[in-house]
């Protein structure tokens, strides 16, 4: 809880830099002034009083930097500086930026296209209930087993009539394609 509060304040601190800076300067100055007064009261010369006060305070710039680091979030600030530097560098060499941009665009475009295809073809399940129970039946030409043979619609009608193992049959393909929901297609060239 305390850490969150601290973090939010430091995040907010990033936007109050000039006020914080003024605050630190004022505070350190007042510290030294108090010390000088004390030293004067102790009988020092004004020069010695100031010298001793400054000595005792320690390195002012270093202390300020420590305070700044604590007031803001140094790593975030460094990140923003880097970002700004990168943007400026890119702006300076336009040609390089253009080539890099086009390369990235093509790369992303090509990858997206390939993935879309792969997902549609390989990854997405078939749009039917229980796709794991679907099978394809086709005739095979024994002389040329590598090529699928077409099924005559009369043969399909016979298969369907004599079917005892499948819950249902439908045909697809060919010019006169029948929907897979149809139970009695007549002129498909292949069957399920």
């Amino acid at each position, binding site marked *: 809880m305390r850490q969150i*509060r601290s973090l939010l304040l430091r995040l907010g601190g990033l936007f109050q830099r000039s006020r914080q800076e003024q605050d630190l300067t004022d505070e350190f100055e007042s510290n030294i002034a108090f010390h000088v007064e004390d030293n004067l009261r102790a009988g020092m010369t004004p020069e010695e009083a100031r010298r001793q006060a400054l000595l005792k305070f320690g390195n002012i710039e270093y202390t300020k930097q420590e305070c700044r680091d604590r007031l803001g979030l140094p790593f975030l600030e460094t990140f923003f500086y880097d970002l700004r530097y990168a943007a400026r560098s890119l702006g300076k060499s336009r040609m390089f930026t253009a080539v890099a941009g086009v390369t990235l665009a093509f790369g992303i475009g090509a990858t997206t296209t390939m993935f879309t295809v792969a997902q549609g073809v390989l990854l997405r399940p078939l749009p039917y209930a229980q796709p794991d129970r679907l099978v394809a039946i086709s005739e095979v030409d024994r002389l040329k087993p590598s090529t699928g043979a077409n099924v005559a619609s009369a043969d399909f009608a016979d298969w369907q009539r004599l079917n005892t193992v499948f819950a249902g049959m439908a045909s697809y393909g060919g010019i006169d394609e029948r929907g897979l929901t149809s139970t009695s297609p007549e002129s498909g060239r292949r069957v399920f």
Partner: protein
Amino acid sequence: MSHQEKTEIRQGTLALMILKTLETMGPMHGYGIARRIEQTSGDALTVPYGTIYPSLIKLEQEGFIASTWDVSANNRKAKYYELTRAGKKHVHDEVRLWEQTVKIMARFFNPEKEPV
């Protein structure tokens, strides 16, 4: 520095010294706190006064102290720090923890006094 017995402030102890000082003394500015810490330590600690400021910022961010700009008795503008309610509770808890730690460490330093 010039005296051998002077020691630097140990890591993690400064925050509690600041809180305890504010608890005892009431609202104070940074210089007053640093001065007081040095005096309370019997001048055994060397504190460059600047070192307390990062600690003050941290304590304020954690909500244990609050600060306001005000004018001192001799008419000088200064930032005054005081304990918040959470700070008061925190001092109490931290002091207990320290006392416990000191007791435990003491047993290691004087093991012969340990009842068998």
